[in-house]
């Protein structure tokens, strides 16, 4: 594939730092080389000597001197090498990408930073980006500042509709813009906010359309491990015969959100643009975070990792079940919803309201229930939306019951309010 056409003008001008070039000299040097080049601070002066963490179940992990050292010093921009290698093994195992030999993987400061830098790398203002509508709100936030041309594609219970995608792309191409449709963004598993999963056949259809219009696919998949039925749908990466997928993985739902660790897999010419931007900004992903996750995964092995995933799926499944129970009890006839097969969100439609924003933002807190208004996720946020997103990850079943009871009352009040105004 010709990747140069996808790179924004700004990104094409990024260059590696001179010092990283010099570091390549280290690869074949003699042991008597005196290295006076890099401005690394002396780690003898870092005050931390030893670190131990206790895992769930009581097991203790003590970081060796070398490992803690690595955790405290600058590291490579694309990630701590043992950790990268570990992640590569996992990706190869889970996805068997058809072009694995021509792929690479980098660690990012959370997967969202990877996405943000991918957009910076890809988009000139006149370019088109395809998004589902509704779409993850932070992604829309990124787009609102870059202000590219947005191709919004409505969804059904499986996500982006191929027929609408096709006609929207045709419209974009014939619009006379100097830009080109460059990329397509989606969250194929437990989509934020709709909670839906894109079926295998649908994925193949979308991939085929991406091929037809030569788009990069941005596969944002933070909920891939939170699937309740042990049914894992094949990723876009696993069907990527062309080398057009950039896949964004996250540890935020599985191991820790605060450590800020995600990773991106894809074609080296595209990862390069992200890596160079990382080099100029945060220099490298947080080393201690990488070291800890690496040690954890090593200590678990494949079996331990599978067990952990199974435990968290069990937990979130129970949360989902309690949520559906609360919905059925209090919101039958008032709202509609699709039962999510994974993740942490339910997307509710209020049957007799045209818009939920004012209700939630102005009256929700007083009514003791806060959900996110659907408008926040729509590409055109000026249009009314009868939807709301509820997260069931952190509330107890009792709170869910109370919350849905409050919501029913809130909606009822709102309907009355609307009718007195008409």
């Amino acid at each position, binding site marked *: 594939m010709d990747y140069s056409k996808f790179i924004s003008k700004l990104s094409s001008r990024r260059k590696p730092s001179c010092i990283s070039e010099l570091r390549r000299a280290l690869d074949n040097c003699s042991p008597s080389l*005196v290295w006076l080049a890099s401005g690394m601070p002396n780690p003898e002066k870092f005050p931390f000597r030893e670190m131990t963490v206790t895992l769930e179940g009581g097991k203790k992990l003590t970081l060796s001197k070398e490992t803690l050292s690595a955790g405290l010093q600058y590291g490579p921009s694309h990630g701590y090498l043992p950790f990268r290698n570990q992640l590569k093994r996992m990706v190869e195992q889970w996805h068997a990408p058809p072009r694995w030999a021509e792929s690479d993987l980098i660690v990012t400061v959370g997967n969202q930073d990877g996405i943000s830098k991918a957009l910076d790398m890809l988009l000139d203002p006149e370019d088109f980006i395809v998004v589902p509508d509704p779409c993850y709100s932070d992604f829309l936030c990124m787009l609102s500042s870059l202000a590219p041309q947005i191709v919004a594609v409505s969804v059904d219970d499986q996500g982006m509709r191929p027929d609408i995608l096709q006609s929207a792309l045709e419209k974009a191409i014939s619009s006379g813009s100097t830009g080109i449709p460059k990329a397509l963004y989606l969250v194929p598993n437990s989509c934020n906010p709709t909670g839906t999963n894109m079926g295998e056949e649908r994925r193949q259809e979308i991939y085929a359309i991406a091929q037809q219009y030569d788009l990069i696919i941005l596969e944002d998949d933070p909920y891939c491990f939170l699937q309740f039925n042990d049914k894992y749908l094949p990723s876009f990466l696993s069907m990527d015969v062309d080398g057009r997928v950039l896949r964004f993985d996250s540890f935020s739902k599985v191991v820790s959100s605060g450590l800020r660790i995600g990773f991106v897999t894809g074609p080296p010419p595209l990862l390069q643009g992200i890596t160079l931007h990382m080099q100029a900004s945060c220099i490298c992903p947080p080393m201690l975070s990488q070291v800890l996750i690496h040690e954890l995964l090593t200590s678990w092995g494949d079996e331990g990792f599978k067990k952990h995933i199974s435990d968290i799926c069990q937990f979130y499944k129970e949360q989902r079940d309690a949520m559906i129970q609360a919905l059925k009890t209090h919101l039958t006839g008032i709202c509609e919803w699709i039962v999510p097969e994974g993740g942490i969100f339910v997307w509710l439609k209020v049957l007799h309201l045209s818009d939920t924003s004012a209700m939630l933002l102005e009256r929700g807190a007083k009514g003791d229930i806060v959900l996110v208004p659907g408008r926040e996720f729509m590409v055109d946020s000026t249009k009314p939306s009868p939807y709301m997103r509820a997260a069931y990850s952190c509330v107890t079943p009792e709170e869910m019951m109370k919350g849905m009871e409050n919501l029913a009352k809130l909606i009822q009040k709102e309907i009355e309010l609307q009718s007195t105004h008409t």
Partner: protein
Amino acid sequence: MKYSRFLTQVSRNRQPSLIREMTNLLAQASPELVFMAGGLPNAQMFPFQAGSITLKDGRALTIHPKLMMDCLQYGPTPGYPPLVKQLKDLTQQLHSPPRWAEMDLIVTAGSQDGLCKALEMMISPGDYVVTQEPCYTGTLSILKPYKPRYLPISGDQNGMCPEALKAALSKWKPEEVQDTEKDVPKVLYVNPNACNPTGVSLPEDRRQEIYKIASEYNLIILEDDPYYFVQFGDRKDFPPSFLSMDVDCRVIRFDSFSKILSSGLRIGYVTGPKPLVERIVLHAQVSLLHAPAMSQVLVSELLKLWGDEGFFKHTDAVQAFYLDQRNAMLEAAEKHLSDLCEWAVPTGGMFLWLKVPKIHDTWDMILERALTKNVILVPGKAFMCDSSKPCQYMRAAFSIVSPENMDKGCKNLAELIS
């Protein structure tokens, strides 16, 4: 000051994320509020429960389960609140910014990420950038894709020359450009202490002159100061920061823990006028979300354990170490390079900036032949705004190398130059 003048269109377009705003509702809500708006994962499912860090002085930082949750869960974009408070207190203590009430602070993933976001906030392709020259390579890397029109300001053993700055800006009349948005310089970058790569510091009178000129021409001053605590000499003799003299509220200051606590934790912080720090916060909100939480908690707990006394005792020890390293380096340089090189004595930090008067350009010598002489340093061209021009300088780092190796290195360097 009107700050919108300094912002790129992309930065002006940034809006707060509603969901993060909604989290603020929690602060004023009744305990009966059922909050289902945030998309947080459940922290009880995170596999780390507790931790313990032993320090080199033998004491321990305990991460009990509740604190571990703070390490592992999403946090606020400006930073872990206890750390933000500690850093604000430290900043106020060290710099007493004259317009402190109009300023704000954000913890960043290393100070360079703060600098990168500040520059991305203000620079559009082709914009002017006023900078010290030679300039830190990281800053040049951030700016390279924007193809800026550099106004490089030369310096001497006391850093940036105010006369050179005045001369560079003299093609504009201050009163004509104060409010102009396009085609005028608006940003000045400076490394005031133990500059990378020159190792020298700006004395107080020069800082005041530079501030005055920046004020006349309405420039934002980017004060990049990662070696603040590694200045040699008594802390009470440190020259005042640009932040401490910022009567206009035009300074954005970048602080770092990388040289004194840890570079790998990725913790730095930015202090500046509220409207500008807000833009950086909005950018962080849609990119990395916040600086790594565990790193922030560790730094916070460490500062709490040490208190001011312990903290300054540590920075004094770090400074003393680098002073010894510098002295050993100078000894080695004097022994082997006094006929071949010139240099100014570094007043802090970890770099020696060597001039080779007999050589036109050190680039080829180093990249093509240095390995054969078993010594590597950075050719000066890497620090120049215009990399097509030859440069007679080289930067040697003395942070990690032993005195024996410094001697060997300088000896090898002498052979290489000859």
